[in-house]
């Protein structure tokens, strides 16, 4: 286990973490402000990736593609909010779960119908495909560092938005007292649409960027969605700070676990068994972490009083 490997995997973990933050922040914002649990969030991730792939191959510009992915996902989010989501705010959580599960089915099958089952082509653009030299003479893909950079910018941007702007003030007010904000005459339905679209856009951005790393296919958003839920449960549903902390924690623990647990077991088990046990444990690690945290803090680490 070399220091270079550790550093490389740490950065991988950060990259996964920042991408998870993009997903989790939208989820937690929507729950914090509107009290709504949205299973279809992963579909926005997928929509962002698909739009990016389609626009990039049509226009040849990756930047154009990513913008299309972000804005397109936000637009889709706004439409979904207007047509479906706003009927669900006062419904019990079960109804919200089922309705948004229905949306997953609609989005997945709809995408499959439009684009087919084979993955779409999306590569990192040449100007982002280089390598950066890390201490210890290792080469690390530039693109992944760019993702981290984008993630950090979004975190800072969100912080500024929430704490310094009027929209942010309304969001914070909405989080602490939903009924009050309506009584104050602020157009709450526009606020809700905006928040929902913002969350969707962030998910789309995550999908757009990750699409170049992995394949763009139907259902790509689902594993990410589950991880995002674990993140917001660990961080505290409704807390952006919690989402950031949880995302980085989950990203790093998951990445390091997958690499180092098999190595650890090789210390005292035969190699093939070590890989099996290590891999099995690594895939369960995040959930074990969540269960342990919830055992001590049932509402997450940075619980927002609801």
């Amino acid at each position, binding site marked *: 286990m070399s220091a270079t490997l550790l550093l490389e995997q740490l950065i991988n973990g950060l990259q996964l973490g920042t991408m998870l933050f993009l997903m989790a922040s939208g989820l937690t914002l929507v729950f914090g402000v509107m009290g709504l649990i949205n299973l279809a969030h992963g579909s926005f991730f997928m929509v962002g990736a698909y739009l990016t792939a389609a626009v990039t191959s049509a226009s040849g510009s990756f930047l154009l593609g990513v913008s299309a992915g972000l804005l397109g996902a936000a637009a889709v989010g706004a439409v979904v909010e207007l047509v479906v989501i706003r009927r669900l705010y006062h419904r019990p959580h079960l*109804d919200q*779960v089922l*309705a948004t599960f*229905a949306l997953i089915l609609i989005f997945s099958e709809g995408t499959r119908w439009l684009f087919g089952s084979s993955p779409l082509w999306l590569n990192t653009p040449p100007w982002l495909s280089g390598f950066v030299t890390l201490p210890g003479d290792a080469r690390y893909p530039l693109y992944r560092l760019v993702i981290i950079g984008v993630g950090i910018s979004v975190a800072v941007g969100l912080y500024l938005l929430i704490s310094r702007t009027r929209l942010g003030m309304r969001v914070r007010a909405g989080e602490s007292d939903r009924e009050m904000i309506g009584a104050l005459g602020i157009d709450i339905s526009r606020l809700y649409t905006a928040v929902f679209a913002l969350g969707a856009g962030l998910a789309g951005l995550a999908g757009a960027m990750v699409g170049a790393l992995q394949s763009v296919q139907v259902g790509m958003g689902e594993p990410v969605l589950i991880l995002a839920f674990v993140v917001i449960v660990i961080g505290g549903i409704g807390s952006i700070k919690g989402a950031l902390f949880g995302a980085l924690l989950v990203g790093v623990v998951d990445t390091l676990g997958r690499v180092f647990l098999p190595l650890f077991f090789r210390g005292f088990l035969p190699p093939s068994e070590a890989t099996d046990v290590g891999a099995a444990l690594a895939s369960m690690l995040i*959930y074990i972490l969540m269960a342990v945290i919830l055992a001590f803090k049932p509402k997450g680490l940075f619980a927002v009083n609801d």
Partner: protein
Amino acid sequence: MTDQTPSGTLPGDLPARPPRRLGRRGTVQLVMLALLLVLPVAADLLGHPYYVTLASRLTLIAMAAVGLNLALGYGGMVSFGHAAYFGLGGYVAGIGAYHAFDATAFMGMLPGSDNLLVLWPLAMLACGLLALLIGAVSLRTSGVYFIMITLAFAQMVYYFANSWPTYGGQDGLPIYIRNQLPGLDTQDPLTFFLICFAGLVLAMALTSRLMGSRFGAALTMARLNDTRLATAGINPYPVRLVSFVISAMITGLAGALYADLNGFVSPSMLSWHMSGELMVIVILGGVGRLYGPLAGAVLYISMETLLGGLTEYWQLFLGLTLLGVVLFARHGVMGWLAGREPHG
């Protein structure tokens, strides 16, 4: 085994109940059961074993949903991880058959078995224990946290099954010869269907009896107003935990039968899609209704078979139907066919 309005008067100056007769609800229920029994038998006699197997599949999905309905519908616990029990039941059946076939032992200790009289209690025991562990932790949370934590625990089981190569890992585990019941030919489609039918009827009868008992009254109150329950002197947590465990055992038994039906068990039985499908079936049929799971399963399998024959994108229409039901027809199929429940 249908709902009938009981006879006689009650102590005190209370309205007398009308004499025993089958109401609208009872009639619908009886017709559903009768059709479920008669149609596959007819199909078998006419030489269409495919439909018998389809009926078995429907029956087992309904039975799994009966289990979930106990926790979710009657108990108000939105478990998004019931696939864990469905799959675990399946794996018990599969692993038992695997070791019996090979004459090897599970973990080097437990010998295999292809005797269903051994495998079924074992499946229920395993699922009960898993539910006890998961429930003990999860039921300390509530609301969205409960939904998420049950989902997460099911994911744990899913990933674990996926990465344990001995029993197939991602590829799953075949059951080459269906497990046996002494005296019956489980290979025969109709016989196996009748076993599944018996399982469903038993599960529903158990649910009905349970919900009519003192325990059921406590569970109902736990769902409607757990503050009232505690103030009256009953702690909600053990009541919920026990219902959760029983519900998992029913779903687990359905899973064990399902694995034998298909001759195959794989991690997909543990996936969150499976959990979602079970929830969809419960809600389509009508949450907290005795025959809801059966009605929901009929609707689901019908869409899969009929629509699925027309388009491979049938799940799009399932999604639209589900959305429609949640937004506009909240009481599901049973609400539409049999009218509102008297109370609760």
